[in-house]
């Protein structure tokens, strides 16, 4: 069995940043495992720009952003094992993996960082009704086919869901000569970034139809049309509002699901809301020495924040390896209260300054986010605008936690 101090599963933005952070903190025996043929993760197919504004104060494309990290990882000669798929992970941090050179591999790690990213919600996952013809693709798959394999998925397109990949693909497919007829969004607001709505839809005269969804799909072999309809507040179609859109392709951009199948095998406890691990403030899961960061922990809006989070996980894993034991006594539970979808981390210690990452439940103006415990407000911040598509980060000094007696703090938006 191969032995490694630190194994990182996934060489996307999370895995790469985590590796570099761990290296900077003195860990050299690192193995990054990547199932694709090259590192970079989903960034490799994100050939549009807009990455790196926070992290590098520059506008980069996905591959450029990835290369900022890949180049450093290569410079430090950290090992990336590509074309390698991990199929098993235990809570003893033993991994089973496959690749073309080695066949079956068994690896024992002192610490593991989960950085597997997310997968897309599918037609089955949203119970898309109607026929099941060809021509229905998730947005990320269509992006992969188009940008990495130069395959045109279709000519007359309807996009369901206004997540960022869907918006980006509306523009991308238009540039490839396809007719993007509409983007339908079941919510009364878009789940995509505001800048993407402007740059990908408004600039190309692609209509965004809010509070609408697809209620029927027709096509015996290839997709022929979809029926759209308006929905009421409980998302039920409103009778009489149906209309048919002729199309050969339906692109689904209906959400990402953290890819935690391996985490489950290692008995990592998951949060029902995020779909990712329940983590402490150093991003360690309930399993000793297994850390989680990036989209496998919770779905991020910006890759810059993934890098920040991954650096934290890398540092924590380095500390864990060096100290070889439980790091701190985390004992305060963090709960999402009214108006808040989720908060990460879910468990914190009193001794450290904390950064909470959270999303609000619905878009609003003039909101105050309050962090409270023992009936007292520890910290509050005002926001002119809040939007579920944009992650909010709030920093709170450890001074605020020290006097706490109760073991739960609550975050609310009022």
């Amino acid at each position: 069995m191969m032995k490694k101090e630190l194994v990182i599963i996934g060489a996307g933005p999370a895995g790469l940043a985590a590796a570099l952070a761990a290296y900077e903190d003195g860990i050299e025996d690192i193995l990054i495992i990547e199932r694709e043929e090259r590192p970079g993760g989903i960034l490799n197919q994100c050939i549009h720009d807009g990455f790196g504004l926070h992290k590098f104060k520059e506008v980069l494309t996905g591959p450029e952003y990835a290369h900022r990290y890949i180049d450093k990882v290569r410079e430090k000669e950290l090992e990336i094992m590509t074309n390698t798929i991990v199929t098993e992970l235990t809570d003893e941090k033993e991994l089973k993996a496959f690749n073309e050179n080695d066949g079956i591999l068994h690896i024992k790690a002192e610490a593991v960082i989960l950085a597997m990213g997310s997968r897309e919600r599918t037609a089955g996952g949203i119970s898309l009704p109607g026929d099941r013809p060809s021509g229905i693709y998730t947005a990320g798959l269509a992006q992969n086919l188009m940008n990495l394999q130069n395959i045109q998925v279709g000519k007359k397109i309807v996009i369901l869901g206004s997540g960022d990949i869907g918006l980006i693909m509306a523009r991308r497919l238009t540039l490839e000569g396809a007719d993007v007829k509409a983007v339908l969004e079941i919510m009364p607001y878009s789940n995509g970034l505001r800048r993407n709505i402007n740059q990908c839809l408004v600039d190309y005269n692609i209509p965004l139809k809010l509070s609408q969804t697809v209620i029927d799909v027709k096509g015996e072999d290839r997709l022929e049309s979809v029926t759209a309809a308006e929905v009421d507040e409980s998302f039920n179609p409103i009778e009489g509002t149906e209309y048919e859109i002729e199309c050969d392709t339906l692109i689904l951009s209906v959400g990402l699901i953290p890819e935690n199948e391996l985490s489950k095998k290692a008995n990592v406890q998951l949060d029902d809301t995020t779909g990712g691990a329940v983590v402490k403030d150093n991003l360690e899961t309930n399993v000793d020495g297994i850390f989680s960061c990036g989209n496998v922990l919770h779905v991020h809006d910006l890759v810059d924040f993934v890098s920040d989070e991954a650096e934290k996980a890398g540092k924590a894993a380095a500390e864990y390896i060096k100290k070889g034991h439980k790091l701190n006594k985390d004992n305060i539970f963090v709960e999402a209260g009214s108006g808040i979808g989720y908060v990460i981390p879910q468990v914190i210690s009193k001794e450290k300054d904390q950064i909470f990452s959270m999303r609000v439940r619905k878009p609003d103006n003039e909101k105050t986010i309050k962090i409270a415990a023992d009936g007292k407000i520890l910290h509050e911040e005002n926001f002119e605008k809040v939007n579920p598509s944009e992650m909010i980060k709030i920093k709170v000094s450890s001074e605020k936690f020290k006097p706490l007696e109760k073991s739960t703090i609550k975050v609310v938006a009022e």
Partner: protein
Amino acid sequence: MKKQNYDIAIIGGGVVGTAIARELSRYKTDVLLIEKENDVGQGASNSNSGVVHSGFTAPVGSLKADVCMYGNSHFEEICSELDVPYEKTGKLVVAVEEKQIAELYNLQYIGRKNGAELYIVGEDFIEEKEPNISGKAAMYSPNSAITSPYELTIAFAENAHQNGVEISLNTKVVEISKKNSKFSVKTDRGEILTDYVINSAGLYSDEIAAFSGEDRYKIYPCRGEYYVLDKNASGLMSRLVYPVPPENAGGLGIHLTPTVEGNILIGPSNEYIDSVDNEATTKEVMDKLIKEARDFLPKITRDMVIRSYSGIRSKIVPPEVGGFTDFVIEKSPKYDNFINLIGIESPGLTSAPGIAKYVVEMIDEMEKLREDKDFKKTRKGITKFYELPEEKQKELAEDNPNYREIVCRCENITKQEIIDALNNPLGVQTLKGVKYRARATMGRCQGGYCMARIIKIMQDEFDMDLEEIKLEGNNSNLFAGQAKGWG
């Protein structure tokens, strides 16, 4: 079609048609199987619960009861010969209310008359065996089992094919007429002559039967919708869980079925529809499936669903008549050597081996069939790499690098299995053909990860053009072609 003359033509490549083809391939006779789709099993054979029934719903003495019982007692052996998954899970028919318990005794009475092993069990038994299932009492059937209906249909076809049966896919029968002592079968790909016609055309069996002068039967399509749950939910139950059959519903009621792949199915619903090929799913029914499934298994949630699909039963009574109808397997009124199989619905999968035997005996009575000493009863399916013990995995991976590459990460399917699926003896090269043979794209990501990889294998290893890559049917092209600015 390679020849002009055949002894026997089977029309319809569902599980019944392919089972008959395999049964006939034991004998020295020239058999042609005609299927209009580009793969076998494209109708109800692909889209049912995959259950091997133990025979307690059909009345004693009915043909349905006989062929079902035959199937139940021979299924394990057949699956082992054909390398098809089979798992004797047992079944609980659960009474959720006290007043349904009497009906359990009635089912047990019928079933025992048919020769099935059945017990009435109480709440404690349910609690112990299936702690997540709620019910007052149940009938327990230890011999109920599950199989893979698509793998079985493919296996019947492949075994028949290796024993000399010709299988002509993409071939649609347009007319059958008597020409001297033979039947002329005209298809959209030419005409053949044959001594016998076996009509196992499922939903189209009434149309085919009309060519033999049989006009008493009409098929009433009855759709059943299903949900497939993520393998993560498989720990919720391990046996088949059925309701007490609803009165006059024409179906077995929405049940919970573990699959051999490790998923759970919810369904099927029961809805008469106008068209025999409308396999759509509907929001109303899908909502109902979840609701009714939760009556037994409250832990089921919507986010466990990874897929919905539907299949269509070929019923021979309209909804207003309902009730029990037997399978119709008989010579046509005009011609002895034109055998019609009509109304073969549930338990059609379980009954297929018995039906095949029954049909072959009908032919044997008319014309003594001579056994073929070279008949090979075994067929080898695709090696399922990830199910093997690790030493065996190592051995295979040592010799063949294609076993070192996992293409479908949900189901852990290797590149070699994809290649094997594309190299199938029937020559099927669609994405769904790969799905039904190797299980790739069947998992929770529904091809989100592996589809692009399978496409690449099709292009690199099989020289397929992008434009000819299809999902399933002949017009189901997946792509519009290369993107602009390429090359």
